């Protein structure tokens, strides 16, 4: 399965299993989503459960909160990363806070899904990586799968969670990776990182579409005789600091790779965790390898912005030779 198919399959399984689930957003119904993630679901489950909403992200998220406190379990799609911002107030002021505000009287079992990230030659607002914004808001969990298998298992867990989940989908690898994934239901923990590859010299932490780029970088590193441990974060908030910390204590080195702007980012958070969890083991400065503090460029300029395996290797080597 591709990741698109795996997500579709997860939605299908849960829609079938739990009548309280509804799926909506812009063009998710008849059209099946601009990336076809919800294809076929409206036909199967009807317009009352899978439907197009008016074009208003604040409305999509705000109404979903209403549904979530009154017996439904909404899964909403925001069409692109850059269109999560109109919903920012509902997310920051209500979705993340309703449980606390009501002292647990209401839980907020809802999932906000959206494709994110660059590398697809898109127009402005279609290549953003806003994970750090959501991870700074208390009351949310933010997750990102990097494989079809993870996407399916994590999405099912997200849907079953009583807490609101930001579920970010790396659009660049929506169809780029195929994997055997069972059609049966399974779940994966939401806050566990995964050690993709063990190694002893440098810890590389990544998530989403960057995992694959890091794997390519590791091949180069292998040839250069550097043994890299690769961690796929999977959960952005909370970060699995146990797994990350243990690895850095072993290798003494961290290279944190992500697409977002580097300042005030997941990269900064990982560097901080390296200090908090492995200070005495650090053998070189933990390092962010990320996008610049610029708008993600349009197609012609994106080559400068996007993080290549070569650049990741360059940083791995620098860290190793420090």
């Amino acid at each position, binding site marked *: 399965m591709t990741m698109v198919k795996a997500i579709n399959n997860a939605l299908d399984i849960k829609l079938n299993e739990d009548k309280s689930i*509804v799926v909506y957003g812009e063009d998710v119904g008849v059209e099946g989503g601009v990336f076809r993630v919800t294809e076929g679901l409206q036909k199967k489950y009807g317009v*009352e*459960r899978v439907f197009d*909403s*008016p074009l*208003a992200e*604040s*409305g999509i*998220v*705000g*109404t*979903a*909160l*209403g*549904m*979530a*406190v*009154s*017996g*439904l379990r*909404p899964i909403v799609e925001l069409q692109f990363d850059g269109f999560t911002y109109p919903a920012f*107030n*509902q997310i920051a*002021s*209500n979705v993340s806070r*309703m*449980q*606390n*505000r*009501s*002292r*647990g*009287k*209401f*839980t907020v079992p809802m999932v906000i899904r959206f494709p994110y990230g660059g590398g697809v030659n898109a127009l402005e607002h279609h290549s953003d990586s806003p994970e750090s914004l959501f991870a700074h808001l*208390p*009351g949310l*969990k933010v997750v990102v799968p990097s494989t079809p298998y993870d996407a399916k298992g994590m999405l099912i867990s997200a849907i079953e*969670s*009583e*807490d609101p989940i930001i579920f970010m989908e790396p659009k660049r690898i929506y169809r780029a990776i195929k994997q055997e994934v069972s059609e049966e239901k399974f779940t994966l923990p939401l*806050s566990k990182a995964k050690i993709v590859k063990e190694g002893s010299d440098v810890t590389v932490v990544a998530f989403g579409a960057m995992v694959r780029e890091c794997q390519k970088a590791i091949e180069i590193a292998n040839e250069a005789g550097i043994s890299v441990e690769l961690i796929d974060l999977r959960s952005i*908030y*909370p*970060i699995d*600091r*146990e797994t990350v910390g243990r690895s850095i204590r072993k290798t003494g080195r961290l290279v944190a790779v992500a697409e977002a702007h580097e300042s005030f980012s997941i990269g900064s958070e990982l560097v901080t965790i390296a200090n908090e969890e492995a200070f005495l083991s650090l053998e070189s400065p933990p390092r962010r390898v990320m996008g610049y503090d610029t708008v993600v460029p349009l197609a012609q300029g994106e080559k400068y912005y996007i993080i290549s395996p070569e650049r990741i290797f360059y940083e791995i080597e620098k860290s190793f030779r420090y």
Partner: protein
Amino acid sequence: MIQKDLPEVLRDFNPLEDKVLRVIDNDGHVVNKKMMPSLDDETIIDAYKKMLYERVADEMAISYQRQGRMYTYTPNLGQEAIHIAAGLNIREQDWLVPAFREMGVLLAKGVTMKEMFLFYLGNEHGGSFKNANNTLPIAISIGTQFHHATGIGYSIKQQKKNEAVYTFIGDGGTSEGDFSESLNFAGVWQVPVIFTIQNNQYAISVPVESQTKSINLAVKSVAFGIPGIKVDGNDFFAMYLAYKLAAEHALSGKGPVLIEAFTYRLGAHTTSDDPSKYRKKEEEEEWALVDPLLRLEKYMRSNNIWNLDVEALREEYKKEIDAQFVDAEKNKAYPIDDIFNYMYSDMPQELLRQKAEYEQFLSWKENKK
């Protein structure tokens, strides 16, 4: 033409012609017999008493704040007819999605003054309205609550429940994008939601004329294809009728209704506000003459159902409310767990770690002594 969707009896009150639904005039005389809801005397007396209770509770709260015993408070003065009329219509199973100036409706849903006080004393447990069925907490980020109401309406409709949603906003709130978005969603989804704009003519210092150029606020319904009606918000009977019909409309599957309750904020915006900075004493005095309590009293007197000793009632309410305040005031316990425990159902390690670190600091501090 939009109004064709309104209950028949309301169709004469077209907001496009700036008509206002009114049953009694400022002197308490019935000016529209046809529209007078049939309420027995006890109900009317009970309504008056509830309005008085809300009034006294407000006065007490303001005085606690002045005495420095409570933080900033948001009074309801002058808007009680709206609240009690809604409160008499809202049922156990109906949903209340409040803004922050509908205390009377909250009380009708079972919220206690003790809880209100606890909230304004700075304790979240006061604001959770634990025992009020289907009642959301106070919404401070203006406009956002309308979306929640629409979403709840969707739940009700989809699950074919016999429930309606009551939600509130101020005149100022109609400028927020969420106001328009949510009415639009509600129109498309045809959900059983009764949206009330409490037009008290001010958003803090800003008069409604600076808020919008629409001829009134009810007319905004036209933009979303839903019925709207402007009601005299200081006329208990008009408000009662409006809610009764709107509830029938919503519960019979005909979709949402927008009610503009035209009223006046008799008090300050909050206890931190000084209205003399932005409005004339004369204006306030003029509106004090059409105080909803006064109007209902006049009606009751001229219909010979006035049998209340207001001073005695006031004393009774004062005592009862003060007991609740003192009770709330006593509650000084605020365990540190209260900060962390409600953020998630499934608390992340990260929060446990932060709490543990803070506790280490606390024990260091303890040891230093």
